[in-house]
C-alpha cells in the first residue's frame, strides 16, 4: 500500500506506538496516509480502536516477518474551504449503472481494494494521487466519484473541484454496500 509518511515504531512497546502515531498524525494533511511500522503485536487492535475513536481511517495491516505495517488515513475535512459536492445515493447511482447509461465513474480506493472488485469501466485513481493525475480526466464530464464508504470520494471530489471540475457527484455510501455487478 502507498503512504505519504512512514513512522518507525519498531521495537517499541505499548503505549509508545500509539503515542508516536498520535504525534505524527498532527503533521499530516487530511486524506494523507501514514504507515506505522511496529513489532508490538497488540498494536493492530489498538490502532484500529484508536482510529475509530478519532475518526481516522484504518486501511489495513501488512505483515513482513516480525514487522507489522499499519496504514491509517488522516481524517479531516476540506469542507471549510467551501466546496460542497452534491451527493447521489448508491441506489439511485445503481439504477443509472443498471440502465447502461454511459457514466464516468472514478474509483478512488487503494489498488488492493479496487482489484478485489470494482464497477466495470470505472477509472481508478487512488485518493493520494488524485491531485497530480486530475489531468487524466475531462473537466466537462459528469463524474461519479466512489470509494468504500463515501468519505474518501468526498475528499477526492473536493480536490478536483478546486481544479475546475464542475459536474461531480459523490456516491454515498460506496462499494461497501454495492450489490451490483463487479469485475
Amino acid at each position, binding site marked *: 500500500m502507498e503512504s505519504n509518511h512512514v513512522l518507525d515504531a519498531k521495537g517499541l512497546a*505499548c503505549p*509508545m506506538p*500509539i*503515542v508516536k502515531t*498520535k504525534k505524527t498524525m498532527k503533521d499530516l494533511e487530511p486524506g494523507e496516509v501514514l504507515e506505522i511500522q511496529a513489532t508490538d503485536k497488540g498494536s493492530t*487492535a489498538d490502532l484500529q*480502536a484508536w482510529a475509530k475513536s478519532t475518526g481516522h481511517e484504518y486501511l489495513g495491516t501488512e505483515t513482513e516477518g516480525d514487522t507489522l505495517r499499519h496504514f491509517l488515513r488522516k481524517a479531516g475535512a476540506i469542507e471549510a474551504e467551501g466546496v460542497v459536492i452534491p451527493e447521489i445515493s448508491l441506489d439511485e447511482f445503481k439504477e443509472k449503472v443498471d440502465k447502461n447509461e454511459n457514466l464516468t465513474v472514478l474509483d478512488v480506493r487503494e489498488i488492493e481494494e479496487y482489484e478485489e472488485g470494482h464497477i466495470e469501466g470505472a477509472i481508478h485513481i487512488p485518493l493520494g494521487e488524485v491531485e497530480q493525475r486530475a489531468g487524466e480526466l475531462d473537466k466537462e464530464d459528469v463524474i461519479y466519484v466512489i470509494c468504500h464508504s463515501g468519505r474518501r470520494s468526498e475528499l477526492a471530489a473536493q480536490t478536483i473541484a478546486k481544479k475546475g471540475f464542475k459536474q461531480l457527484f459523490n456516491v454515498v455510501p460506496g462499494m461497501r454496500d454495492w450489490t451490483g455487478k463487479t469485475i
Partner: protein
Amino acid sequence: MPVNSMTAKEVAKKVVNKESFFILDVRNEDAFQDWKVEGENVQYLNIPYFDLLDGVEEILPQLPQDKEVLVVCAKEGSSIMVADMLSEEGMTVSYLQGGMKAWSEHLDPVKVGDLKDGGELYQFVRIGKGCLSYMVVSNGEAALIDATRMTEVYMDFAQEIGAKITHVFDTHLHADHISGGRKIAETTNATYWLPPKDAQEVTFDYQPLEEGQDVTIGNTTINIQPLYSPGHTIGSTSFIVDDTYLLSGDILFIDSIGRPDLAGLAEDWVGDLRDTLYTRYKELSDDLIVLPAHFMIMEELNEDGSVSEKLGTLFEKNHGLNIEDETTFREMVTGNLPPQPNAYQEIRETNMGKINPDEEKQREMEIGPNRCAVR
C-alpha cells in the same frame, strides 16, 4: 503521590478475600469485553489508554476517592503511563505488574487435603484463566495432573517440599491452554501419561493411560485410578485419588459441565458425555470430592481460593447433571455453545507436538477467558 505496583499474586489474594477495589482497565474495549480481572466486589471503568493521551482530568470524577484504584493493561506499559498521570493529579493509584499477561500466568498452590498415608494433595489455581492443576505428594514422590506451561512453578514447589516428580498426567488433550506436562516429564525424567485415544496424532513418546491401570506414588498406596470418561474429548480420563478425590478433568465442573465440541465432534461425543456424567459418575460414591480442571466464575472458589465440591452435592445442584430428558441434554450441549477458546486449534497442535511456538506466541494463543464448559 507515588505510584504503587501490585503483583498478580497480591491481586489474586484480594479477589479470593472478596475485597472491594476499583479497576481502571485501559485496554481497548474489545479486549476488556473479552476478559478481565474478575472479582465479586470489583468495580470497573474501561477507558482505553489512547483516549487518555491528552490527560486524565476528564475521568477523575469517575474514579472513587475512598477505594483502592488499580490500573490494568495488557502488558503494563500503558497502565504505568496512566497511573503516572493520575498520580500527577494527586491520586494514589497502583498498576498491575506485568498486566493481563502476568494475571493470565499467575499460579497459586492451595492444599486441598491430606491423604491417608500422610501424603498431600495440592491444587494449583490459575486464577486469571480458570485452569486448575494438581500435585499428589506421598513419601517424597509427586505426581502432576494437568500441569500448565508455567512448568517452573511446579518444579520449584516440588523441590521446596522435598518431593521428586515421578509421574505426569494429562486427563485429556487440552484445547484451551498449553500443557506443561511433556516438558516437566522430560526435565525430571518422569513418566508422561496420556489417554491413547487423545494422543493418536502426537509426535512424541508417552505412556498410554488406560482404565484399570493403577499408578502408585510414593512407597505406600496412593492410588491414582484412571477412569475412562469420554465426552469432552474421546480419550478424556478421570482419576480417583486415594479413594477420596475425583479429578474430573474437563468433564464435570462445579457449576457447569464439559463441552463436547473442541475437537470438532459435538454430535458424536454428546452421547459419551451423557453416559459418563449420568451413568459412570452416578455409580461412584457420593462422598468423593470433585476436583475439576477448570472453573469459570469466581463464585466457584471456596474461601481458601480452592475449587472443590462433593460429588453428591453436584448431583443435586449442578444443572448439567439434572437434565432428565436426553434430547434436552443433547440440545443444551450442542445447540448453545459458547465461543470457542482463542486459537484452540493451534493450542491442540502445540499439545500434540506438531508445532512449537515460542513463549511470546504461546502467551498470545492463551489470551482470553476459559471456555471449556456449557452451562
